[in-house]
């Protein structure tokens, strides 16, 4: 697995620098054959997927040693990694669909791996199986429509034939593909499988799914929309941008109020893919409006954010796996106090959380800064729609960034700092060296992307520029300089400045503290007895203000039960508080849909009465009907 990941990463890096290669194996599969064609865009996704696979593979070695993996997982994991690397390398529609389906099936096997332990796994597996296959059908339909005028299914032919596609057919192909790929990327409202399946899978599988697999949804949108169909009208991309913005805000909002660590990370994936889709949508919109330089900048931001997200999401999910292994719990309200018992995991999660919260020394800051630059510089663009959508996009990104900070402060502060809130958390022990090595590798990647994004940025800008036929939008070796619009940022300087700033503040406070005489005394506890873990902030209480503010969107269900003493109703015996946060999109959209499907199925059951003659008759009548149709329509 590690070797395969390494191979993929190296192949991707090689391809990113411009060395395209292709392989055709026509006889390997019936009907379509296999055709691989790696260009720079594929290279980005190959490199990211390969790198995630290396870290997750090393982690998996440790997980296997601890007996966390079953033979089924060990068999399916390499196949999953292989398909993950083959999807972006596919050079024809048939190959892409084969690899996509292989990826869906192997990941499904991995998601349901622990179905004996928890009943929720089976339900998550069902959601994932249905949604991924409906998505597959959508992609297949969309790609077949797109390939209508092409001579064969290879991407070269489809690209050449796209000019003959009628605008209506092209729009249909794009929208159906967007639905299919978007559901893989966790785009609202096609996201409900993601916060179910990602938490229920074993943690290294969660990392692979959340950091590498969802990227391929974005890959599909870029490949089909920008590359194969050659851009298209502005409203396609406005749709992508709006859906991306909604996903980003909705995802991070759910993450901010959730208290299940892995579910929180899953919703955060929806958020980050939403941001990437905002960038992709902005790129398409600018390209359709003729502003190639800004289009290149937006796409560069999208690719960089994909990379960054892959790095920090790998760290976060693998650390969550390490915590889960040590404490047996994903519930933030039962964790805490892990800093002294699991120092390496805590440090790695801290790095990941910092990267994820889009604050200056973190890795995501650079990509979000690039995205904001693209959107802000696009504001003078002509037309009513951009004038409305772009400011809203900027606002959505700002809101997302703020909520992300709150989310990850909660995840890190409640989950790792403070006092342990349960016996399991108090007895936690650090994970083994292999697991820590996997986490550490990914954390190193986070730090590297935060300090030196300029190492990869010019290459990404080259690739993005090549796709939208523009000059690279970003240059610079130490400082990032935007081309075409004004904007300079030096990540290295920023990291150094914030490091110096933090060090001076901490040092200053220490210095001041040392000057005064310190007196050791018991912390004042209002006279209510010794402080205990029950008095700490929990994830639920931390998120309560946010939940109050956004209650109109979240529609939480709370229940406060106060029971009184028998002697006096002025004396409270116990207070119980229950809160449920149902996914509102799911409840409003999917519950009626599922209900309708069930009814339809029950009605359909009436067709099968058991009579052999009736079954024969169905076939006979259908045949006669078809023949009659043939006669009439000929």
């Amino acid at each position, binding site marked *: 697995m590690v070797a395969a990941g390494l191979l993929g990463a190296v192949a991707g890096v090689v391809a990113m620098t411009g060395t395209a290669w292709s392989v055709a194996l026509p006889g390997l599969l019936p009907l379509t054959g296999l055709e691989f064609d790696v260009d720079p865009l594929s290279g980005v996704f190959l490199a990211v997927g390969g790198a995630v696979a290396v870290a997750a593979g090393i982690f998996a070695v440790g997980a296997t040693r601890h007996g966390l993996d079953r033979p089924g997982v060990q068999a399916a994991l390499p196949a999953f990694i292989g398909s993950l690397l083959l999807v972006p390398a596919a050079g024809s529609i048939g190959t892409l669909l084969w690899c996509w389906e292989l990826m869906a099936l192997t990941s499904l096997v991995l998601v349901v791996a622990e179905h004996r332990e928890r009943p929720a796994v089976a339900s998550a597996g069902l959601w994932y199986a249905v949604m991924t296959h409906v998505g597959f059908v959508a992609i297949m339909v969309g790609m077949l429509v797109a390939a209508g005028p092409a001579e064969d299914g290879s991407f070269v032919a489809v690209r050449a034939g796209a000019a003959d596609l009628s605008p209506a057919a092209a729009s249909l192909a794009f929208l159906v593909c967007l639905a299919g790929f978007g559901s893989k990327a966790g785009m609202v409202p096609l996201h409900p499988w993601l916060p179910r399946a990602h938490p229920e899978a074993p943690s290294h599988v969660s990392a692979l799914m959340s950091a590498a697999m969802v990227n391929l949804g974005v890959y599909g949108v870029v490949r089909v929309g920008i590359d194969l169909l050659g851009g298209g009208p502005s409203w396609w991309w406005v749709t992508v941008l709006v859906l991306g913005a909604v996903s980003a805000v909705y995802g991070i909002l759910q993450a901010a109020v959730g208290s299940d660590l892995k579910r929180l990370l899953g919703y955060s994936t929806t958020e980050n893919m939403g941001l990437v889709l905002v960038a992709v949508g902005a790129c398409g919109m600018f390209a359709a409006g003729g502003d190639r330089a800004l289009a290149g900048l937006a796409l560069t931001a999208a690719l960089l954010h994909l990379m960054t997200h892959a790095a920090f999401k790998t760290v976060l999910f693998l650390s969550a796996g390490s915590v889960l292994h040590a404490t047996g719990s994903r519930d933030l309200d039962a964790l805490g106090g892990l800093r002294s018992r699991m120092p390496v995991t805590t440090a790695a999660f801290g790095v990941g959380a910092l990267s994820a919260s889009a604050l200056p020394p973190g890795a995501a800051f650079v990509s979000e800064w690039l995205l904001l630059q693209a959107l802000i510089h696009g504001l003078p663009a002509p037309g009513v729609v951009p004038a409305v959508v772009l400011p809203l996009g900027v606002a959505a990104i700002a809101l997302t960034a703020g909520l992300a900070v709150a989310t990850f402060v909660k995840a890190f502060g409640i989950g790792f700092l403070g006092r342990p809130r349960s016996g399991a958390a108090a007895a936690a022990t650090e994970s083994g060296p292999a697991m820590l090595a996997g986490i550490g590798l990914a954390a190193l990647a986070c730090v590297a992307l935060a300090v030196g994004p300029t190492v990869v940025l010019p290459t990404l800008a080259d690739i993005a520029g090549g796709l939208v036929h523009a000059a690279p939008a970003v240059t610079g070796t130490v400082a990032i300089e935007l081309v075409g619009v004004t904007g300079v940022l030096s990540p290295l300087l920023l990291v150094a400045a914030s490091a110096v700033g933090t060090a001076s503040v901490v040092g200053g406070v220490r210095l001041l503290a040392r000057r005064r005489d310190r007196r050791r005394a018991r912390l004042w506890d209002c006279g209510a007895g010794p402080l205990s873990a029950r008095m700490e902030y929990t994830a639920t209480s931390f998120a309560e203000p946010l939940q109050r503010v956004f209650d109109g969107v979240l529609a939480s269900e709370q229940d406060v039960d106060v029971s009184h003493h028998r002697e006096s109703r002025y004396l409270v015996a116990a207070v119980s508080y229950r809160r449920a946060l149902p996914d509102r999109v799911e409840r409003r959209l999917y519950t009626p849909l599922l209900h309708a499907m069930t009814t339809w199925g029950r009605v359909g059951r009436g067709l099968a*009465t058991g009579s*052999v*003659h009736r*079954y024969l008759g169905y076939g*006979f009548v259908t045949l*006669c009907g078809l023949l009659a149709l043939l*006669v009439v329509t*000929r």
Partner: protein
Amino acid sequence: MDPAAMSPPAVALLDVAAGALLLTAVLVVWRRDLPTILRIFTAHGIALGALVGVLAWAQRSVELGLVAVGVLAVRGGLLPWLLRRALARVGPARREPRPVVGVAASLLAVAALVMLAFAVAVPVVELGGSAATRAVPVAVAVVLIGLLVLVTRRHTISQLVGFLLVDNGITAAGFLTTAGIGLVVEVGVALDVLLVVLVLQVLAGRIRDTFGEVDLGELRELRDR
């Protein structure tokens, strides 16, 4: 040789054989007592053999002549004999128990099916223009009538007859559209059909042992609960 260049007497004979094929198929739908149905079915097999024989004579093909003899032996001799044995074994019920669709309605349906077959086969007829291709609609009609028998009859022997009608129709269509399918293929198909009939014969015996009668309507287990 060119099949379009068929001599007038051969064309007349071909038309007679095709007509007999269709007529016997319609008669199967009309009658309800099983021994008569089997006699009509024998005539149907002979008509099919004759059809192939006429084609062999028109094309002066010895191989096709051999195939015609084989078809005659299997479809006009062996299969009806097997069916008669099966009928003797399944018991005294010699009449089709009330069909799913009444005889009059069935005959009307047959008329509609024949028209449908002729309408569907128009492109094929336009393609060739020879006497053999002009007879293709008859073969299609026989297939459809066989399916109708399968759908509307309850007795297992009637079901077998319906299945064999479908197969005879397919065979006829094969011979009429191509200039002979080839001995090996035809022998293979004949063996397959023979096997199917033997299996179904056993199945009919088992149905009778289990339910005491041979009505397919008794098989109602195959459904959602």
